[in-house]
């Protein structure tokens, strides 16, 4: 299971004077599914675009293993970029010819009831996303890169989208990297959670163990300063503390009511923590 598929080393990237990526490194294993979260402008989309070869980092290297030739990388950008003056049919034919796809699978297209002679630019955002996904699925990608698009799709198509992705993960043992900050639908998919801030990964945990390492304490009174936390906030009736890293020792020492949290909240805590930090600076 631990077969390295991508190795990203020390990516640096500036746009103007702004550091977008700052010594970003990451390894991805085959078949792994990863979610990258982070604030807006934290560099996660840029990072994904680097993996997709759409942006070249100023420094650093991205090495794909030999079994991932360029045509086995599938990328759905947040821009939903396609040749939108093409009709659906022409778009499929072009994609198939570029990626040497011999028999294109129209199942998804048919399920969506897309008109083949319709221009791509006239598709709705959701249809366009699923159309793009169906193009990429036909590539049988080893790596699937999905930028923040899930939230633009309606619930019905979102389900279809997820089913297609899950299907691919099982069928091709594909590695999936998703950049996202809405999690309710997908929270059970990623095995690994990354949080990015200022071009660096500040969290990289298996989702299996993340729940054990991060707990929430809700209390009216302030809790001891010695309890490590990444984020806290005061609401009108109580305070919320996100304790990280948590272990059972801590519970013995400070017997608060440590509650489990959902991924959504965990991410929120991490992202929120960064805002607080920024405020303090």
């Amino acid at each position: 299971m631990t077969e390295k598929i991508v190795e990203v080393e020390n990516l640096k990237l500036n746009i103007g004077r702004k550091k977008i990526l700052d010594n970003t490194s990451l390894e991805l294993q085959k078949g792994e599914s990863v979610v990258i979260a982070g604030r807006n402008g934290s560099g996660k989309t840029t990072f994904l675009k680097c993996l997709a070869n759409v942006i070249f980092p100023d420094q650093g290297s991205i090495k794909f293993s030999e079994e991932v030739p360029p045509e086995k990388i599938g990328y759905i950008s947040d821009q939903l970029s396609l040749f939108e003056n093409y009709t659906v049919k022409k778009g499929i034919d072009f994609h198939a010819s570029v990626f040497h796809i011999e028999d294109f699978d129209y199942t998804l297209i048919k399920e969506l009831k897309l008109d083949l002679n319709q221009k791509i630019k006239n598709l709705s955002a959701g249809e366009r996303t699923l159309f793009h996904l169906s193009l990429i699925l036909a590539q049988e990608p080893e790596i699937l890169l999905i930028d923040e698009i899930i939230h633009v799709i309606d619930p019905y198509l979102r389900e279809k989208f997820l089913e297609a992705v899950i299907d691919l993960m099982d069928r091709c043992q594909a590695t999936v990297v998703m950049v996202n900050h809405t999690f309710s639908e997908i929270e059970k998919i990623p095995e690994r959670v990354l949080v990015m801030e200022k071009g660096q990964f500040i969290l990289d945990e298996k989702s299996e163990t993340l729940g054990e390492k991060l707990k929430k304490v809700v209390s009216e009174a302030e809790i001891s300063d010695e309890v490590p936390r990444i984020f806290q906030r005061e609401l009108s009736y109580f305070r919320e503390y996100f304790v990280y890293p948590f272990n059972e020792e801590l519970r013995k020492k400070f017997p608060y009511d440590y509650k489990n949290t959902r991924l959504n909240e965990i991410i929120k805590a991490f992202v929120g923590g960064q805002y607080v930090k920024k405020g303090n600076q």
Partner: protein
Amino acid sequence: MLKKEINDVLKQIVFFTAAVLLLPAFLIITTIISDQSYFSVFFPMFQFGLIFWAFFMGSSLFSLEHGQRGMEYLLSLPYSRLQLIGFKIVPRIIAVMIFFVAFWILYNAGGEDLAALSFISFTFTYFSLFLISLSLSASSQNFLVLFVSSLFSLIIYFELLSVVIFLVTRMKRIPYYRLNYRYFFTGELDPYLTGFILLAAIVLLLPLLVSFILSFKKFDIRPAKVYNKRYLKFFTPIFIFCFIISAFFASQGIHIGYKQYYLTLDLKLIESHPYSGIKIYEHNKVHKIKGDFDFSWPSLVDNEYVYQIAHNKTTRSYNKIIRLNTSDYTVEVLYKGLSERSIGWRLQKYDQTIAFVERKRKKDFHDIQLVLVDEASKEVTRIPLEYKLLEKSYFPISIWTNKTEGKRFWLISTEKNWKNQILRIWEDGRIEDIGESQKAPCYVNRMLISYTEEDVIISMEKEGRFEAIRKIPNSQGFKFGTGYWRANLNDLTFKEIFGWRRGPTHPIYAKLNLENFEIEEIGETKGHLHYFSPDEYYFIEIDHVASEVKVYEYKERKQNLLKTFSFNTTEKRNRFRPCIGGIVFREGKKVRAYAFPDLKEIKFKKL
């Protein structure tokens, strides 16, 4: 992918063709200029349309992707950036070529007279604009910005090319006017120079292209500013490098000429390099004289001096006579005329007097003077010539000189309406009309040789007038002469002179015996005659096919081969020069001299 690009370009071709074909038709209909043919309206428009087409083909490399938000998708396809460029450039180059061929066909089919730009300048502009706009195509998404910057770059590019050429001419101390590089556009320069200038031009275009390719290797969807910054980073050093290379190529091509060699009567070798002075080689020494002059084509040579007509740097008129003393190595200006006047290229020396014809260069062509320069005092006497006789004639070129009853006179011949007018000018300014000759006359052994349609007329002076003494039938049309480069030819006595006419393959020579006045035809000869002294002459045959030059001597009615020189005769750097003292032969950088009469090689140790 290639198919997509071909399809895209095809669509653009169809659109452009339709526009180009229909626009003039539309114009004709709306203006109802019925007397103008479609083609005469079409062609100039077509030419300008093509210039735009070159720009459009270059700069539209990514416009379709930009136009349909497909850039990111394009870049995520499994092609390297270089492959992408390849896919995009190939069909566009073909499209550009197709229209160039179309232009070429139409240009030859009557477009030449209608063309707004000459063929070469159009070709040059067309392709360089294509390559420039291609190189800039990724720099902006805005078509107008691309258009302006491409045009701007094109202008800068042309300017840079002239700067390169200007710098090279400065460095080589070549007066800039000598290399009117505009000739490059009209194609009037020699292919060697044009080739190198073209090379320099291409090299100067490389910085844009190479930095495009290098910076496009990492082209991405970041703002164009990032790409342009990288582009400039590549561009600057490449530009400096290419500028130097370009100047190097230009300097290889730009030259007034190679070193020229001349072998004098006293067997000294003069090496002239334009505008840097001369070197005089002797057996084991060399003397260098610096200055802005050369002695590559002496107008006159005698035992003491070599004379050369030199020109004025700024006015480009040949109005100076310089003189080289080959024994004490001095160069001096013997005569300097007004800059608006020009010296006819034949000088004649009699006693201490150099004589030549001088005329105005512009407008008053009939303002002609015979100029006499005393060598010792450098005193100048000018005798204005009555112009009516010379009106609309060619420059009077032939002068012979002599003395009759203590009075000196000069003979001048001018060609006009296929006839040669012969004038005699006396020292005191009198002008005497000697008559006409069908062919260029000549004066030898105090005899004037002139021609009627059928005969050769030999005239001699009697009581101060030329009188015909002989009439020799000359139905074959031979033209006799003595050679002209030697000073004081009139002091020499010839037993015989040669005449020639065109033969089927080789010239046909005849001998005119000056004692019994008989013409003896030699028949077809190999080569052209070269006089050494009155009774010593050689035939020099240049054979471009066999790549050799053969030197024959004529003895006992036979041409005997003296020496064969084998070399590439068409190569410009190789040169075979018969001089007064012998033959100078240059092959590549090797220079050898062979002295008359037996063509023995003379060694110059310092050469």
